[in-house]
């Protein structure tokens, strides 16, 4: 039960020990922090040691503040519960209870009277000497899952080791990578990027909440981003801004949603010299594996093959993963509830073997039932997205009196098809839409069973993304 392990190094020590260029930095829209200045930089109140041994709720209002606080807190606090930017105030009492929180660190606004000690984080880094321990604690890092709609968010317990065990170690060839991401580091996907930058000798460019995608891309390009990650939806949105050419990355990674062939191909065209990889990761399972051959899905021979510490199994058509990066459990539920007898996590991602490759067909909970036939929206979106005039699509179920449900598609076409608003569109824009709708439906009919072909295709300006950068999928 003793959390002390003398051999352990805290995040800040590992960050400062990792070899990288002198000018390493962590930055956002407003602030740039030099890594070499970190030993004399604090965001916690200076001169005190309030967090030692505490279970801390970290409610930072910017990613940069969160990053700097994490660097200060690891090894010092007993537990850090990392609030995502959109955590509802309603959930706070339960979170405080489940997390056994005895200190709140906040740089934003929080409801009063939470009944726990509260200290302000400084929004910009101050000079000061951070607390350092020669015998750092094995701090628990608690992250929230992104996938739930409504209900109490699930709190997943990691440690720095489980979050970083799969990250490539050892010195890097050439200059340090400059990492960036559309993700938020206050969630699992972004946390991976933060830790890779910290532990792998790199720099990190963080996005700001109010910053438009186009401005973020331009800034990342100016700062020399070399490694950049996001969901397929993030990437489609980046392409839609027309600013995707502002960056010249050497490594592009997609995860968090199914990466279809269309987006993989488009990114490879945009960045011909880059590695375009798609990876499977979930907050509970940790990073499963990365596919770098530019094709959707993954080679069947990965299954059962416990290569780099990750074992992959397919049970009842859904992907299960076991890895050293798996979380220790949920803080607010039965700790073992997501591990099966073999220690595998059921990801809920459905796969289908086609030839020598598994393809993702959708999420277990995303099923649409059309007259007794199962339909997964991702499969249809992947087909629609192949059409050259389609930027992004979202397929949903709509209740229907005849078949229970039908499939409908919202489609963002290339801007030329949207040049005018509905009602005022000149004849040629309207007829363009009519033709495109026919083409999309013909396209679907050629490749899909009739019940999977969308009953309706609606052209829209944009498609909403959740705070985690995924398509919003309300359960029909």
């Amino acid at each position, binding site marked *: 039960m003793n959390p002390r392990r003398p051999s352990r190094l805290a995040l800040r020590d590992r960050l400062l020990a990792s070899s990288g260029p002198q000018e390493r930095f962590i930055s956002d829209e407003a602030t740039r922090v030099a890594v070499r200045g970190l030993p004399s930089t604090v965001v916690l109140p200076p001169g005190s040691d309030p967090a030692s041994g505490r279970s801390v709720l970290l409610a930072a209002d910017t990613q940069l503040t969160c990053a700097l606080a994490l660097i200060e807190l690891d090894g010092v606090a007993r537990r850090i519960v990392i609030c995502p930017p959109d955590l509802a105030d309603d959930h706070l009492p339960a979170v405080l209870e489940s997390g056994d929180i005895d200190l709140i660190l906040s740089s934003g606004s929080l409801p009063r009277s939470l009944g726990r000690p509260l200290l302000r984080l400084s929004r910009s880094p101050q000079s000061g000497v951070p607390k350092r321990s020669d015998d750092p604690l094995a701090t628990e890092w608690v992250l929230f899952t992104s996938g739930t709609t409504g209900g109490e968010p699930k709190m997943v317990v990691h440690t720095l080791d489980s979050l970083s065990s799969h990250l490539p170690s050892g010195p890097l060839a050439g200059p340090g990578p400059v990492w960036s991401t559309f993700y938020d580091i206050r969630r699992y996907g972004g946390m991976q990027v933060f830790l890779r930058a910290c532990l792998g000798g790199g720099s990190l460019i963080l996005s700001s909440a109010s910053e438009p995608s186009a401005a973020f891309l331009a800034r990342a390009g100016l700062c020399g981003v070399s490694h950049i990650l996001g969901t397929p939806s993030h990437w489609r949105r980046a392409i839609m801004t027309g600013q995707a050419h502002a960056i010249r990355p050497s490594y592009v990674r997609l995860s968090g949603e199914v990466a279809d062939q269309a987006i993989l191909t488009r990114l490879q065209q945009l960045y011909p010299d880059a590695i375009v990889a798609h990876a499977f990761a979930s907050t509970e399972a940790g990073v499963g594996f990365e596919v770098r051959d530019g094709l959707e899905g993954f080679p069947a021979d990965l299954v059962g093959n416990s290569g780099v510490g990750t074992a992959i199994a397919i049970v009842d058509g859904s992907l299960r993963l076991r890895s050293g990066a798996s979380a220790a459990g949920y803080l607010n539920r039965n700790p073992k509830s997501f591990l099966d007898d073999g220690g595998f996590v059921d990801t809920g991602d459905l796969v289908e073997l086609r030839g020598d490759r598994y393809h993702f067909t959708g999420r277990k909970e995303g099923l649409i039932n059309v007259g007794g036939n199962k339909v997964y929206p991702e499969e249809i979106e992947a087909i629609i997205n192949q059409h050259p005039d389609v930027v992004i699509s979202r397929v949903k179920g709509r209740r*229907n009196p005849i*078949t229970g449900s039908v499939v409908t598609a919202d489609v963002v076409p290339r801007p030329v098809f949207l040049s005018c608003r509905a009602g005022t569109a000149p004849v040629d824009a309207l007829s363009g839409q009519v033709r495109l709708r026919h083409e999309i*439906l013909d396209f679907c*009919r050629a490749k899909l069973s*009739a*019940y999977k072909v969308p*009953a*309706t295709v609606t052209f829209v300006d944009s498609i909403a993304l959740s705070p985690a950068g995924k398509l919003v999928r309300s359960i029909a």
Partner: protein
Amino acid sequence: MTLRMTIFETIQQVAAELGKPQPPLREDLHLADSGLDSLGLAVVVARLEDRLGVDPFSRLVDGAFPMTLGDFVQLYESATP
């Protein structure tokens, strides 16, 4: 365009897309003979919902399901202002 024309046009369009043979549409034609299977009819209802903003089936009581094209048009007429 009248409601009846809108409905007929939608049916013809869907039948053509599905590659179904299309008999001439008349009020007394049974829906079962209209060239549409249940999936086709489901698509027609979804498209009419987009065009007209109503799904009259949602307030149907049991047993009142339309049998002929005339019933079908009437169902929509009773649901649209």
